[in-house]
């Protein structure tokens, strides 16, 4: 068993970068200037990753307004609708409206990843950059479907596109995060959960990169069996939000690689190292193979200054365990 550190999803978009986006939206600056600023802030985030020696990380998703906005980088047919609350957070996303057959956008996400890799090379950062995509259940349930009469067909088409997107990306990255908070959403019907395996088979077909399945927020324990049967390489669990349910979750860890969301990204209160170590120890005792620890959910929900403090805590946990040189 090894213990590694990771960061999933988004890093809080700094206010000054948001001001740049506002200037771009008001046509006061051009796309090139916007990209230049995004690169500058992504570089700052990567410097933090380097400082803390995080082993698995994303680019912080600073380019995108929210997780769902990211999907417009690899899908070109949906349009953006009004603001909708992102699950139970005071955070809103623009709902995609599907009015025609889903089609893949060939360039945007790939270009973003190439830019990230250039930055990592420049900063001489090792570790594993993960691409981020949204899982089929989450995408389908957070969108407004005006095209597909058969909901399963929407999920299949989306899964096929994800497979193509990830096939394009695997020459550049070794791992991908598939964000699937919708898997445990109470509003998602059981039959969709039971068919999830089919969609993940489509997504993973012929792929050699590591697939990290990321879920967060409240878990439905009666869906854990289906969750841990999905054909992926790492299974993510929001430990913070599900402390009282962990007794039912741990048995599923046996012989699995797990990502433990141990940093609460919905509260400013700092976690205790002892508590995090207890989560690691229980996972270990439950037979988990490799363990990655990191943030429990998107970091958009806390101030940047708190996010930095929490990220630095990861290093302390692993260093105190003597697992890092």
């Amino acid at each position: 068993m090894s213990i590694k550190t990771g960061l999933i999803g988004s890093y809080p978009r700094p206010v000054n970068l948001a001001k740049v986006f506002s200037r771009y939206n008001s046509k006061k600056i051009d796309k090139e200037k916007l990209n230049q600023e995004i690169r500058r802030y992504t570089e700052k985030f990567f410097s933090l990753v380097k400082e803390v020696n995080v082993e698995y990380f994303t680019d912080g998703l600073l380019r995108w307004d929210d997780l769902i906005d990211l999907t417009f980088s690899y899908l070109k047919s949906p349009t953006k609708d009004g603001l909708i609350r992102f699950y139970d957070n005071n955070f809103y996303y623009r709902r995609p409206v599907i009015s025609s057959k889903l089609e893949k956008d060939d360039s945007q996400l790939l270009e973003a990843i190439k830019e990230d890799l250039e930055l990592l090379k420049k900063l001489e950062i090792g570790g594993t950059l993960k691409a981020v995509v949204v899982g089929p259940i989450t995408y389908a349930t957070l969108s407004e479907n005006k095209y597909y009469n058969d909901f399963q067909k929407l999920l299949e088409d989306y899964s096929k596109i994800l497979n193509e997107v990830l096939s394009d990306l695997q020459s550049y990255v070794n791992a991908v995060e598939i964000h699937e908070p919708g898997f445990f959403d109470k509003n998602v019907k059981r039959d969709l959960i039971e068919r999830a395996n089919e969609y993940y088979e489509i997504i993973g077909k012929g792929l050699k990169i590591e697939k990290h399945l990321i879920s967060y927020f409240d878990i439905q324990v009666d869906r854990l069996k289906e969750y841990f049967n999905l054909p992926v390489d790492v299974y993510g669990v929001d430990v913070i939000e599900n402390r009282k349910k962990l007794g039912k979750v741990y048995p599923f860890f046996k012989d699995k690689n797990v990502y433990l969301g141990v940093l609460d990204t919905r509260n400013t209160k700092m976690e205790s190292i002892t508590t995090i170590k207890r989560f690691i120890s229980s996972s270990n005792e439950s037979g988990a193979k490799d363990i990655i620890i990191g943030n429990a959910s998107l970091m958009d929900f806390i101030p940047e200054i708190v996010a930095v403090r929490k990220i630095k805590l990861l290093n302390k946990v692993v260093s105190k365990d003597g697992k890092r040189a």
Partner: protein
Amino acid sequence: MEKELELPILPTTVIGSYPRPKWLREAIRLHKNGKISDEELKEAFDDAVIAVLRDHQVAGVDIPTDGEMRRDEMVEYFAERLKGFKFYGPVRVWGTAYYRKPSVVSKIEYTTPLIVDEFKFTKNASYSPHIKITITGPYTIAEWSYNEYYKTKQDLVFDLAKIINIELKKLVEAGATFIQVDEPALPTHAEEVEWAVDAINEAVKGINVKVGVHICYGDYSRVLPYTDKLLVDQFALEFANRNFEDLVLLKRFNFDKELGFGVVDVHNRRVESPEEVASAIRKALEYVPPDKLFINPDCGLKLLPRNIAFQKLVNMVAGTKIVREELKRKGYISTSLKPLVSR
């Protein structure tokens, strides 16, 4: 007194916030940099309130607010004025919109009136005898804060409810006739709505003027089952953003209180025409009787450019007048700010 509270049928109002004039934003920036004094900033706020009231007056709004000119944000404004909160930094709500989400680090305490002065100023400056004063509700303050101190969120919410009740009583003493408790977070957690409603009732206990609650961008089917239990006179809800699809919920849950009907979308810069507004109001009248229908935008207008926010109000009032004329022919002339619920 009854006559004083009379309003034309389909009274028009706003939810609360309005875009700050550019010069006020500049004054705030200068104040932050120490270039102008507290007194000068207060003068700028006062002048801005007068400017907003003038916009509302020209647009023809029956029940204005002060545009919440003094409030950067609906939770942080109150957290700044209560003991027990701490600010770490801004947090994004969507896109490029942020607020300074506070953290509760000790027991919440009321040390000084929160919005009584701003109410008094608005009352004196207003062109209309009817003004609405808004206050963020206990559940939303708690839900949109980080809780580092209280054992449960419920404990925090009920402490806040007691504090808000003190403030509401002071507002009534100062002459408030229409208070709106903003609770956009109320539908967030279905399992918490029941006790959250109790907390709001605690906050409005003994407040015998018109009390509304504003909720937006959430699942109303979680809240509407508590319509009777929630001791407010009016629900001001956002509808335009969702193409009025949620109106059917009013029927499903036998909604029989007053409705503050969100008729223009505050997240879209396209200005609705008066005819569109009139058409939406006619739709709402299929669910709510005319004397229980108030007309307002979906939510606060502050994120729109000022000229667009103003034009939206102008067209909202123009659209309302079209339907008002139709109702007059049916004998509906006026309604009232009288409270409908005993608290």
